[in-house]
């Protein structure tokens, strides 16, 4: 019983992390029709930033660190979008290839700067003591992480559904040409959304640090999970990314715990089913 509850909680926290990763990916894909293969690298960059900051300044608040790293990664993403991606507007394949090139550059730069050893990220002190609920002991930080993902989902939902910016983004997703015609600055929106997506991934990287720790290859581990989440949930759908993240979180955690060698195959089964029976994903729109 203890096993199932603890693994269930681990699944939830991994799902929360995956949401922080894949919501940005899905948002960028929805608006820009761009499969941003740098996304795993943005996440890893956030983890390394967080690891460095939290280890060099004692007692630094993890939320402040996540915010700072998120802004830093968002700035890097924004520069990349402005300097490189905008030049390739008419060449979607070229855009994907430069994001792939960029992910190689970032991951190799991380290897150069931080070396090949894995760097553990300390869990915040006030969240280290376990929480007891109904006689079961839970690691507090993982619970908080799930809360973070839910909070992020709510904020993103309000941003997209209730604000003027969100309305403009939705207009851009539905019909970019028409949105331009009525005076919405779609290319500025591209930059904003790209920064936002990169920033969430960077902040998510910091928050995931205490669980995953920073190591070379973290990007290559996270990117396929993000891809599977958005293929499963439906590309460009926030709800799809949310549900998909928790489904994959559960499958991956229980798969790794029960059948460690086959975890990857189990991970890919739901993807095959969804592609076979609902190619647009669980919450994707037809033709999107």
């Amino acid at each position, binding site marked *: 019983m203890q096993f199932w509850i603890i693994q269930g909680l681990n699944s939830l926290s991994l799902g929360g992390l995956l949401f922080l990763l894949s919501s940005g990916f899905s948002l960028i*894909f929805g608006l820009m*029709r*761009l*499969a941003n*293969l740098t996304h795993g690298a943005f996440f890893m960059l956030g983890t390394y930033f967080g690891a460095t900051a939290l280890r060099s300044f004692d007692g630094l608040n993890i939320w402040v660190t996540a915010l700072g790293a998120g802004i830093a990664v968002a700035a890097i993403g924004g520069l990349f979008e402005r300097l*490189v991606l905008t*030049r*390739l507007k008419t*060449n*979607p*394949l*070229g855009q*994907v*290839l*430069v994001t*792939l*090139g*960029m*992910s*190689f*550059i970032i*991951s*190799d*730069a991380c*290897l*150069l700067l931080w070396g090949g050893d894995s760097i553990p990220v300390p869990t915040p002190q006030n969240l280290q003591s376990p929480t007891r609920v109904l006689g079961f002991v839970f690691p507090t930080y993982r619970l908080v992480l799930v809360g973070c993902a839910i909070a992020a989902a709510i904020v993103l939902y309000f941003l997209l559904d209730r604000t003027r910016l969100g309305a403009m983004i939705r207009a851009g997703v539905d019909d970019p040409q028409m949105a331009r015609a009525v005076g919405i600055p779609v290319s500025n929106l591209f930059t904003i959304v790209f920064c936002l997506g990169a920033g969430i991934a960077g902040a998510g990287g910091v928050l995931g640090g205490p669980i995953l720790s920073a190591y070379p290859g973290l990007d*290559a581990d996270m*990117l*396929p999970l993000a*891809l*599977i989440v*958005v*293929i499963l949930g439906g*590309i460009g759908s926030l709800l799809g990314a949310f549900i998909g993240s928790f489904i994959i979180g559960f499958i991956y955690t229980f798969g790794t715990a029960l059948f*460690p*060698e*086959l*975890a*990857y*195959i189990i*991970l*890919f089964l739901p*993807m*095959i089913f969804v*592609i*076979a029976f609902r*190619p647009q994903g669980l919450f994707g729109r037809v033709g999107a």
Partner: protein
Amino acid sequence: MKWIAAAPLAALLVLLPSLAGDFYVNLASQILIAAIFALSLNLLVGYGGMTSLGHASYLGVAAYISALLTSRYGFGHGPAAIISIAGTTAMAAFFGVIALRATGLGFLMITLALSQVLWGLAYRMSGVTNGDNGIAGLTRPMPFGISLESAASFYWFALIVASFAFLMKAIFVSSSFGSSLKGVRDQPRRMAALGFNPWMIRWLTFIYAGFWGGVSGLLYVYYNKYIHPTSLSITSSAEALLGVIAGGTGTLGGPVVGAALVLLLKNYVSAYIERWNMLLGLVFLFIVLVMPTGIVPGMRRLATALRRGSR
């Protein structure tokens, strides 16, 4: 005219081992293997308009099957080769069914996800694949009792396979099926209206490309006598894709030139610095931003312009 120009090149290729040292002969063997691989990817990318970021799957899986069968289960090289090519082709048929539910970026993401799954398996299933240690101590086959241990003999073996592969792909591309493939790439709806089945054409091409990917994987494992999960990684797929795009998609010579360039760059740079991945990324950015149509079409355009200028 074209054939007369090709003759010295052919002579050079055949006589290379007597002209150059073992280092260069080995490098040439590697280029031939990379060229077969890049050509098979180009069938998808260039002629089919299907950009796959998971082509390393076919190279890696064929190599792993052959390595496992010969080293662990005592198979001879002949049956092992047949089983691994058949297995890889069957896998391509299965992956094709999944990936071809989507086109464009969806196709790219699915091929990438599938290949990352295989890469993860190769790492994690250490009971079978030996994980990060890879499988070492493999042997090269002895076709008709001829040893391929020397650099020159392996080079000739690779050259024979590569020439055959080149010929087969040239025939494929210029056949009526190749024309319908290009038709499906450019105008899938019209092709469907004309009674063709775009999905079937794409799927058969996907399987054919997987088959040749498997052949290059066999040569790869014969050459290295070692296999490691990195051969299944996204870097491996990306190197091949860079070769195809750098050389020029949709041409027969382009991927060969591009694959050779990537391999030379990798070998040359690795001798001096460790930062191959960063350089690979920078070259990606450079090629896409500056030379989007590739080197071979670029050169051809230059040649046409010069010829016109001289008249």
